[in-house]
């Protein structure tokens, strides 16, 4: 496959790993955040951590769209799923995320018609096949998946469909990054930028990171060599005392992004005044809802939902873990009240969250560091 195999070459990986080793200052500790859940996945899948020097630490950021959905929104989704006649559709990994009293999988076990789909277009197909039922799509994701939801809604409107609805939980990546950077106790040296989000929004929206906060950001692809090269580019910036937005993923990401995608999004969505993030609290202008023009497709307008805010458990310190202030094992509930089987906080929900990863792999990682 073009543009894939050449970015998984183990030989080149080792060479990059050596270059990284020579780019770090001995005795200095580097914390680099990969913003996007897709990068976290690559890092685990290929064991990229293992190819980095022990003083380069990758911190998993807030970019897993599933983990950031707060409990109250899951509860609202379940309330809609339980309405008579509703077919509730969503991506597979959302099914397992706990609300205040169970997951969508639990709702399914109790009789709700919850179906997994692979794209919003699949949900639209379900709606066409079931004209006498309301089909609700629980939309999640950053700017990578938002265009897909937007196109689907545009098509639904063009076809004059009245039984397809969307419960919109789309979020945007820049506001949470700014919130992280605003925090006085932040301990990060640079960012691996979210390549797929950037294909849509471009690299420009990230310029504030070096300009206002003095940290480098490198827009990165998702193959293992992409990630290693991006780490090297960040370390070089730090070593040379520079900071700017650089693009490692030029084969896909234009600086300006995808203007057509942005146009469709602007037509279908509008910013919410604020949106709650699990672990990070309310962040202003960080979530999307359907615009007035698409109000008829808004599941939250057709169905009344509890809309109750469920506070993150007090003991949960996901916010601090995300900022790199504490390590997972320093959280009060880690490994006792909060485990991968029964997660409390966002970092334990997905297998790629920082805490779940440490829970499963921590011992191995420590062995590497103490060799």
């Amino acid at each position: 496959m073009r543009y894939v195999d050449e970015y998984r070459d183990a030989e080149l990986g080792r060479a990059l790993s050596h270059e990284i080793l020579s780019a770090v200052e001995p005795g200095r500790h580097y914390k680099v955040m990969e913003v996007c859940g897709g990068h976290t996945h690559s890092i685990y899948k290929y064991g990229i951590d293992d190819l980095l020097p022990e003083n380069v630490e990758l911190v998993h950021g807030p970019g897993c769209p599933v983990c950031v959905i707060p409990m109250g929104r899951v509860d609202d989704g379940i309330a809609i799923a339980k309405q008579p006649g509703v077919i509730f559709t969503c991506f597979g990994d959302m099914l397992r995320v706990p609300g205040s009293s169970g997951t969508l999988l639990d709702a399914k076990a109790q009789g709700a018609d919850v179906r997994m789909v692979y794209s919003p277009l699949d949900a639209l197909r379900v709606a066409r096949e079931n004209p006498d039922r309301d089909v609700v799509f629980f939309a999640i994701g950053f700017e990578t998946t938002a265009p897909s939801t937007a196109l689907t809604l545009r098509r639904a409107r063009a076809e004059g469909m009245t039984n397809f609805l969307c419960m919109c939980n789309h979020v945007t990546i820049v506001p949470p990054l700014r919130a992280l950077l605003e925090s006085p106790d932040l301990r990060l040296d640079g960012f691996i930028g979210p390549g797929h989000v950037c294909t849509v929004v471009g690299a420009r929206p990230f310029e504030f990171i070096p300009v206002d906060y003095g940290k480098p950001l490198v827009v990165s692809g998702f193959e293992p060599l992409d990630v290693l090269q991006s780490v090297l580019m960040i370390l070089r910036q730090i070593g040379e005392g520079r900071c700017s937005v650089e693009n490692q993923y030029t084969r896909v990401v234009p600086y300006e992004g995808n203007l057509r995608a942005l146009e469709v999004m602007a037509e279908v969505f509008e910013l919410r005044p604020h949106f709650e993030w699990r672990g990070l609290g309310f962040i202003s202008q960080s979530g999307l809802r359907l615009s007035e023009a698409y109000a008829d497709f808004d599941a939250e307008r057709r169905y009344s939902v509890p809309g109750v805010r469920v506070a993150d458990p007090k003991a949960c310190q996901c916010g601090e873990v995300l900022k790199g202030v504490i390590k997972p094992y320093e959280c009060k509930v880690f490994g006792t009240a909060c485990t991968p089987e029964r997660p409390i906080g966002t970092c334990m929900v997905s297998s790629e969250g920082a805490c779940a990863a440490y829970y499963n792999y921590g011992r191995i990682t420590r062995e590497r560091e103490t060799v």
Partner: protein
Amino acid sequence: MDVLEIGADGLARCRGEGDEVREVETALLGELRVGQTVLVHADVAIAVVSTAVAS
């Protein structure tokens, strides 16, 4: 995925890493040619992959 065939309705047949073939919505891209590689998310192509090499 590699573009195999472009339909009039914006749907393209594309082939992925393991020779699997899928219908992909391409309305968000400009001019598209058979043989190009596109990045697909949730059945929607969001970018054309170019041969540009990283700096």
